[in-house]
């Protein structure tokens, strides 16, 4: 750490005094008439705007910022973003003419910040390249283009059957302890070297959980391209409320600007961003608390009437911009926690209807050892094949349907044992393919490896083997392709499709590998 000398301090103080504005200040002002639960009622402020940043001046001169929410005839209802215990009745409030903004830029990468952009990781102050408003209009139809590039999660079950595209909004939904966060974190880790900026927004979580996430990202070298916005359960409801929007604002900076920091255009491509909002149910709860204390009328499950709009305007900011606007993208992975698997509750149905698909995680699958515990039957991606490389489409085209048929047969077969050969074959294949989709944490696979694994299963290479050998076979095959047949793996990566020649070579390679696998096993 650099040493601080008396002359440094003297210099900084002189600079500060030189830049001091001593002109007469004309400002609109009001007074706090009531305060409690982080909510203030302020009289005056006739020209306050909805969502405007308000300055509350405490008795000791400390400034606490607030957000104008309810604009009523004779008063303004505001939520406080800082330490509201400092503010008392009759304290002064000023309008600022600004909305809430957060610092943005590359200097935030690798940092843990609160929803106002203040660092929480003890790594020193952040020199922001710019500021962006927390609330920002989502791009219109003309500025967009259809989603067509994949976001590789590294998880076979998702990349093969529920593909996510850059600019898509894919919901991750499930009960507690079903691996929702793990999917988000694995996806972030898998973006290494893919030119994607990742933003992980932790809302209403335990601070220790956030620390674990930071640790995981750091140990896998993913922190360098990730910003963590942390609003743990101990922060005030307003901060939890703005956290996902702050994360989106930080992400938008990279999408709307090129690498040089200048606005993105046809010649200056914008960046690609992945935002994980973990989780929006807690944000909705924070918003409900705010709304109830602001005396807004409660609706279903006591949520305010505009909770749908809260989530829709956030998720509409996920976009794939057209080439004229730099072709940047912001992919959103919102997470929703259900209670007892009830997806028909208010917030889950809202977010399901807003997003372009959902990944359902089920507790019973998780307990059976199917991890990620994705229920591929009811999980869906509405962007579909356009977010997959052709090779994946070729091998995984019918996988969803095959697995659906397998599950149906599996349920039916429990009633009797007299099954014809074709059915037995289908059950055997289904069991192995289901096994093939299992993946541990931090064990992301390249898309080429996924293609090879599914190809092997689809071509019946797993059929004669015990189900328990499936995972070892898959992992060894991937290893084999990385070492012995790297040429073939590279060919798939370059061509991005399985030509007849590649298919032939692949069949030959897998056959050779299988022989050695069986010999090694014996």
């Amino acid at each position, binding site marked *: *750490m*650099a040493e*601080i000398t008396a002359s*440094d*301090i003297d210099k*900084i*103080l002189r600079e*500060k*005094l030189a*830049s*001091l*504005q*001593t002109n*007469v*200040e*004309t*400002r*609109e*002002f*009001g*007074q706090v*008439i009531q305060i409690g639960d982080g909510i203030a009622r302020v*009289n*005056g*402020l*006739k*020209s306050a705007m909805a969502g405007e940043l308000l300055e509350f001046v405490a008795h000791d*001169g400390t*400034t606490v910022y607030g957000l104008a929410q309810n604009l009523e*005839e*004779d008063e303004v209802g505001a939520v406080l973003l800082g330490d509201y215990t400092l503010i008392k*009745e*009759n304290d002064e409030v000023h309008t600022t003419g600004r909305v809430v903004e957060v610092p943005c830029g590359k200097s935030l990468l690798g940092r843990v910040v609160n929803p106002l952009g*203040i*660092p*929480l990781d*003890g*790594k*020193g*102050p952040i020199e922001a390249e710019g500021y962006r408003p927390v609330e920002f209009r989502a791009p219109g139809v003309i500025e967009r283009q259809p989603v067509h590039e994949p976001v590789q999660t590294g998880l076979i079950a998702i990349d093969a059957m529920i593909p996510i595209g850059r600019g898509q909004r894919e919901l991750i939904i499930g009960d507690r302890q079903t691996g929702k966060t793990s999917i988000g974190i694995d996806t972030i880790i898998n973006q290494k070297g893919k030119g994607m900026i990742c933003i992980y927004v932790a809302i209403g979580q335990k601070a220790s959980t956030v620390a674990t996430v930071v640790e995981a990202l750091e140990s896998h070298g993913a922190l360098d391209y990730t910003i963590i916005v942390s609003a743990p359960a101990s922060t005030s409801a307003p901060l939890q409320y703005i956290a996902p929007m702050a994360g989106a604002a930080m992400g938008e900076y990279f999408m709307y600007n090129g690498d040089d920091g200048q606005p993105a255009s046809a010649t200056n491509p914008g960046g690609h961003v992945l935002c994980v909002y973990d989780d929006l149910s807690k944000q909705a709860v924070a918003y409900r608390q705010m709304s109830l204390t602001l005396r807004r009328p409660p609706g279903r499950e006591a949520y305010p009437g505009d909770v749908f709009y809260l989530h829709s305007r956030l998720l509409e900011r996920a976009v794939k911009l057209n080439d004229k606007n730099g072709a940047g993208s912001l992919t959103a992975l919102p997470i929703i926690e259900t209670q007892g698997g009830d997806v028909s509750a208010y917030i889950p149905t809202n977010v399901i209807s807003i997003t372009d698909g959902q990944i359902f995680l089920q507790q019973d699958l998780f307990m059976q050892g199917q991890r990620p515990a994705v229920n591929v039957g009811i999980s869906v991606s509405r962007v579909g094949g356009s977010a997959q490389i052709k090779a994946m489409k070729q091998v995984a085209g019918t996988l969803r349907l095959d697995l659906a048929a397998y599950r149906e047969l599996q349920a039916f077969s429990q009633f009797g044992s007299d099954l014809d050969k074709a059915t037995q074959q289908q059950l055997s294949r289904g069991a192995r393919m289901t096994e093939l989709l299992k993946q541990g944490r931090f064990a992301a696979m390249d898309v080429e490896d996924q293609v090879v694994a599914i190809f092997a299963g689809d071509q019946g290479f797993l059929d004669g083997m015990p189900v328990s050998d499936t995972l070892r076979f898959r992992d060894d095959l991937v290893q084999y392709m990385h070492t012995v047949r790297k040429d073939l793996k590279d060919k798939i990566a370059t061509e991005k499709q399985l030509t007849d020649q590649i298919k032939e070579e692949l069949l030959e390679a897998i056959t050779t590998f299988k022989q050695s696998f069986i010999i090694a096993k014996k």
Partner: protein
Amino acid sequence: MPRNRLLIKKEIDAYAEVLLEMGESNDSVYSISAQLEEMKKVVNMHPGLREVLANDSIDENTRVTVMHEVFKEFDVELIKFVIFMAERRDIALLPRVAERYDQMVQDKFDVAILDVATVIPLDDELREKIKNKFAAQFGKEIVLREHVDAWLLGGMNVRANGRRVDCCTATRIERIRAELSSVSTGGER
């Protein structure tokens, strides 16, 4: 049960009109305005007083005594008026009535009411200077409500229509304090 806001607005208008009539008949329009402003401040600053005045379980005589005690330097008619408001459980409307009253006075007499706070009382020369300066800005005759506030240390504060021109020494010193205390040589806040 919450009342209709339009009805409340009409009620506020009625209170303000009565006050204006009272002021005109006693030739105390501006004095009422100044006293209402002070009353508003006192009621705002003391939530306990607000509760006592609006509390039905406290007998009327006690409430009247409290009012006389708190506002003993104010106009007797005005105190009666505020007690009447309290009896009708409308004391919470006092700040809005005061605001509406000022609005009516400004509209009716085509003047602008300015609150001027200084450390020492204004002399005639300064009073004229202030009036002339703001008359040019507002395009109206200026009526000053003068306040003495030692906290300002120097200079003055002028308030009108919810805006404030702040040129007091205390604010400038406060600004310097805030600027210097935000000096950072590294580390997080």
